[in-house]
């Protein structure tokens, strides 16, 4: 009997799902209630989906080892990695969410953008180089250089999977809503389509495919945003003052949109959010994973610099897109209702703006780039989770390092499982607050991962017991306090007044985790003994 290669089956499955989604979107146009899908959008969508699948097919043929699959064989250049990291930041959440926040309330969106950018020097200065020097697959490799390996890998594996899951669910919910709105298909088919493509993409192509799609997408996103900004400025004769005056006169909050508004209401809440973002980026698994794809510390350092510059450029363009949306879309009955809410939701502000200044061709292009963004970010998340599952959780639980083939197999099975989990939870969480889930993931990363990584690199006194107790405290307390905060306790669960008054607990949990790690570490000295497991990757660095 003829044996069909697994890669071909996956490729055909994904291509079929792409064209089914495109077809259903096209047929949906005749329905009166759905008016978002346009032929140009569908054409761009199908072209991008097929292109990403071809890239994953190409990369999949090279991914014969876990090193190649999880870290692209550490062969990505600094410039490419900088673009890929920037691509991770130019997610649908940033592009659509921040633009929507500026459209709704002015400079509040730019405050979040500046917070994310300010977190990059922290990543570069504190963790980028040590990670590349000491790590191979996950940041647990850095911790296990000086701490007992088994409990640390279990802890890091658990916290990584929790963070990745929250991020994944948030992205899937956002993806489902976006694709549903853009292509006029139901939420369920949208989540399943994105999920299938994501599973094929991440299971087959691995980190090399995710990196190249991020690079292409980042370049297209920057190019597309540049075109929108240029066209907006042309509309106002390159007079920024006119743009702001029109925006102020269009917006019901008037001149208040020129300053922050929502974040000025509660200083402690804003401070806590800021601490979470500032230190959370240095604990996000899918961002840290990027530093293992380059060859050395110098490349890690330079790629962080490139990423900071590109993300900064992107946020500047978001600023003009946001204010341009207020000036052009508000008050135009084609795009917004009488109260100023955009048709299809405020998240579609950049898409509507692209249509207003560049026609359906530009809108279709931007929509397809937004779709590619979701696919690339979600795939990066899945690979980070798969890497931690294969190299941390399974190793920690079994007490031994895996052989190369087994590690690759478990990585792919983990990617598949996470993808299915993402589809199921994405379907279950329809209508949930995406921004809340992302904030929770960042707060957990800041509370559970960052203190451990920081102390392991810069303090020789950290003991395994201190790291495990502190890390567990950070993980549990950040999840519990966020669950007891206003968003989930009152708004999502409807359980009455919140027990914990702030959405982000990072202001309290980050310093407390550091203190717990310190106290437990100084309370009892680490017993001397063997701490590396059999077949430890550390042995590879000896010679």
């Amino acid at each position: 009997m003829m044996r069909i290669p697994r890669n071909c089956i996956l490729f055909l499955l994904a291509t079929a799902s792409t064209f089914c989604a495109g077809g259903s979107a096209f047929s949906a146009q005749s329905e009166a209630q759905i008016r978002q899908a346009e032929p140009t959008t569908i054409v761009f969508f199908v072209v991008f989906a097929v292109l990403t699948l071809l890239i994953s097919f190409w990369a999949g043929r090279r991914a014969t080892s876990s090193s190649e699959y999880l870290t692209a064989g550490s062969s990505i250049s600094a410039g490419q990695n900088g673009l890929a990291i920037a691509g991770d930041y130019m997610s649908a959440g940033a592009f659509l969410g921040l633009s929507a926040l500026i459209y709704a309330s002015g400079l509040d969106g730019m405050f979040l953008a500046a917070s994310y950018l300010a977190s990059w020097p922290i990543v570069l200065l504190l963790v980028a180089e040590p990670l590349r020097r000491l790590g191979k697959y996950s940041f647990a490799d850095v911790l296990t250089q000086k701490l007992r390996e088994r409990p640390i890998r279990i802890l890091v594996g658990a916290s990584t999977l929790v963070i990745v899951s929250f991020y994944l669910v948030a992205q899937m919910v956002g993806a489902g809503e976006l694709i549903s709105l853009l292509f006029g298909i139901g939420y369920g088919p949208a989540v399943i389509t994105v999920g299938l493509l994501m599973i094929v993409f991440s299971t087959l192509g691995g980190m090399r495919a995710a990196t190249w799609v991020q690079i292409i997408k980042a370049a297209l996103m920057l190019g597309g945003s540049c075109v929108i900004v240029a066209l907006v400025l042309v509309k106002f004769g390159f007079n920024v003052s006119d743009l702001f005056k029109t925006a102020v006169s269009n917006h019901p909050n008037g001149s208040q949109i020129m300053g922050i508004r929502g974040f000025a209401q509660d200083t402690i809440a804003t401070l806590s959010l800021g601490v979470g973002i500032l230190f959370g980026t240095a604990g996000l698994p899918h961002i840290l994973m990027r530093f293992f794809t380059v060859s050395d510390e110098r490349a890690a350092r330079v790629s962080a610099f490139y990423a900071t510059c590109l993300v900064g450029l992107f946020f500047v363009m978001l600023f003009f897109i946001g204010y341009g949306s207020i000036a052009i879309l508000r008050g135009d009955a084609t795009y917004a209702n009488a109260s100023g809410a955009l048709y299809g939701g405020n998240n579609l502000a950049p898409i509507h703006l692209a249509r207003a200044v560049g026609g359906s061709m530009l809108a279709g292009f931007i929509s397809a780039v937004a779709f590619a963004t979701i696919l690339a970010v979600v795939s990066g998340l899945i690979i980070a989770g798969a890497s931690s599952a294969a190299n941390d959780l399974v190793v920690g639980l079994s007490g031994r390092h895996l052989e190369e083939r087994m590690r690759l197999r478990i990585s792919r099975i983990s990617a598949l499982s996470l993808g299915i989990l993402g589809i199921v939870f994405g379907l279950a969480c329809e209508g949930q607050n995406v921004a809340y889930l992302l904030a929770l993931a960042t707060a957990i990363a800041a509370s559970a991962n960052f203190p451990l990584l920081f102390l392991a690199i810069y303090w020789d006194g950290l003991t395994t017991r201190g790291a495990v107790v502190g890390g567990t405290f950070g993980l549990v307390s950040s999840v519990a306090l966020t669950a007891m905060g206003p968003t989930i306790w009152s708004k999502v669960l409807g359980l009455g007044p919140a027990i914990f008054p702030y959405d982000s607990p990072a202001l309290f949990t980050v310093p407390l985790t550091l203190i717990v790690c310190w106290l437990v570490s100084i309370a009892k000295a680490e017993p001397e003994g063997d701490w590396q497991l059999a077949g430890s990757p550390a042995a590879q660095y000896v010679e």
Partner: protein
Amino acid sequence: MRRASVHRTTEIVTSGGAANRSGAFRFWLVLAMIAAYFATMAFLIYSARHATETAVVTTDFSPAMIALAICMAFSIILTGVFVLVRQGD
């Protein structure tokens, strides 16, 4: 197992030496970034609570926008300075 232990000692000595060379510089840059970020936040909150209508609409960019732009530019400059200095190591 013994080889791994030897490796660990070497690694820590090496990274400790490197950390000593650039540790103070790195420390001050981190502090500068954190201070700049929280100073920006404080200014934004203060200016939002004491905003005057006329002061805002007569300028191209509001003081809050300029403060955010400075904070963002500072982030980029800081990373650039660090990368440039470390290239010589």
